[in-house]
């Protein structure tokens, strides 16, 4: 029984953190976006953000981003204690402006990708990724 109970308690701690943390949008995320864009308008569209709807494992969630014509793409996990994940920069001779990585998510939250285009404009894509305790498949 000890194993089960320990698992359950560990799970419980994670799940409780999940209910407390992520639903308040972390101000640090908005600040990071403002610093990246310098307060400029950010358009929707033009950025492809590939992420699962429900994470199979919240500790390592595969994320892909691409934006044609981008000079940089910033990736944020808005509900994490430290929202900034990475900023990918591309030179003029870059063959493709894509990146993929794996990130850790503290709980269900929005993952955001913001692309800085070569002309200085900004575009973004958002995807809600659910981190669940699972069970009960039909």
């Amino acid at each position: 029984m000890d194993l089960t109970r320990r698992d359950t308690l560990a799970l419980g701690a994670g799940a409780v953190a999940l209910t407390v943390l992520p639903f308040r949008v972390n101000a640090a995320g908005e600040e990071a976006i403002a610093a990246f864009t310098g307060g400029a308008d950010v358009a929707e569209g033009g950025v492809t953000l590939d992420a699962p709807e429900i994470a199979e494992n919240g500790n390592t969630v595969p994320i892909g981003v691409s934006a044609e014509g981008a000079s940089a793409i910033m990736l944020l996990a808005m509900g994490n204690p430290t929202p900034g994940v990475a900023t990918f920069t591309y030179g003029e001779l870059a063959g493709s402006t894509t990146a993929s990585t794996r990130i850790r998510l503290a709980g269900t939250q929005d993952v955001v990708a913001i692309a800085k285009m070569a002309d200085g404009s900004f575009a973004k894509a958002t995807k809600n990724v659910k981190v669940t305790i699972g069970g009960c498949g039909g």
Partner: protein
Amino acid sequence: MISRRDFLQVSMAASALVGASGFGNWARLAAQQSLTQDQLLQFDTFGNVSLIHITDIHAQLKPIYFREPEVNIGVGNNKGAVPHVTGADFRKLYGIADGSPSHYALTYNDFSSLAQAYGKVGGLDRVATVINAIRADRPDAILLDGGDTWHGSYTCYQTQGQDMVNVMNALKPDAMTFHWEFTLGSDRVREIVGDLPFAALGQNIFDAEWDEPAEDFAPYQFFERGGAKIAVIGQAFPYMPIANPGWMFPEYSFGIRDEHMQSMVDEVRGQGADLVVVLSHNGFDVDKKMAGVVTGIDVILSGHTHDALPEPVLVGDTIIVASGSNGKFVSRVDLDVRDGRMMGFRHKLIPIFSDVIAPDAEVAALIDDQRAPFKAELEEVIGQTDSLLYRRGNFNGSWDDLICDALLSEREADIAMSPGVRWGPSLIPGDDITREDIWNVTSMTYGKAYRSEMTGEFIKVILEDVADNIFNPDPYYQQGGDMVRIGGMGYRIDISKPQGERISDMTLLKTGEAIDPAKNYVVAGWASVNEGTEGPQIWDVVESHVRKLGTVTVAPNNSVVVEGL
């Protein structure tokens, strides 16, 4: 010029006619007690291609009873839409007469008395007869198995799925996709798949390490039929490592992956596919959403959520066919495929009334062979039931109430949890409860019954989490199960609220006191997805409980109050 959409709508009307006349006739014929196999199979062969779909058999080789759900709530855009229509509303929608065979096959009301009148359903020997009859009309019909085939019975557990593999191979499917099969463990799945005489498909089965398509499963398979080139793309259950124990198949990753689905559709179209069929284990609402996101799919054969629909649902130019579960139905879909596209269809959901459809002798003998080594164990009578025992429905079913009572009593717990799976046949009042019957509603490779302490707060987190897997308004966030069943505790649920706000009024039934978030409660449950769970197997817990009771009577359960409908 008549557009493709017009063609589809014309043929939809024709399909409705076939359905309506079939349904009307059944009622009359039943009254005359003259329902025959020929009438169940009657079908005017149409077009140049036939698809045969069966799904979610859950290892039910023999005829069973299966009560369709009373409560099946749709949310978001699917509120009030099929398959979230039940009972009298369902019969009204499809013009089904009260008391008719279709009433018995497709809705829950008066189940016990109609079950006595019309008998058991399913049995793969009867399914074989239906498939053979369709192949007599159309020798090159494509038989597609939507998965959840190698799971769900005593013999399937004991043989690690081999009984089902042997019998299904005799039916000669052309392709299959997967869900519970993976709970046999990935080594066993690869062992079986390596020898399958048909295609094992899943465009969304990926290698977990590299996030690339897994080499063990093809994304699609081509078939040349009736002068047309047909691509069948597989879609396995998307949430396998979340809804089931991921540690049993750690090499694989799943997900809906609708962008990859689009690229597969484009790829097969580029290779000259005249017809694109998706053999799916997404669940109905996910398929409906996917049909609106991915362009170029003609037919989705939908599984996982165990819905049985007498007509296809049309989304854009895509038809979605839902063929029930537990061997209770087979769908036949005839298609007119010409000039690189689907010009029309005719469809029939064929109910497998086991007393009306003759068993195929060869397959019947093969089924007996699979069961012979276990005959004594299967047939041992453990008790009797005075109550209708069923599971399907969004909240508690009477089988689950019995299982939760067994957990509370045998494991001395305050609260019991039983998973909201959708499989498990029914028993009617007066039936014996055999060991096979208990295994039919409990068998799985992770069935150990844990006993653990949980705080009131954590119990609420679990309920909120599972509720969001059913009632999230976006189908892509739904996992296709029902609500976790609770014994020893009542609660109120408002399905219209977001996660974290749905559950309230949690009450410990034995004292009538409100659940204290900070207090620890002893919880017994089964089907934990955590590795290393300890405890007796759930079927042993239930068997011991039923043996003590002798005759089972399950009182009506009013401990869950549902709001926000």
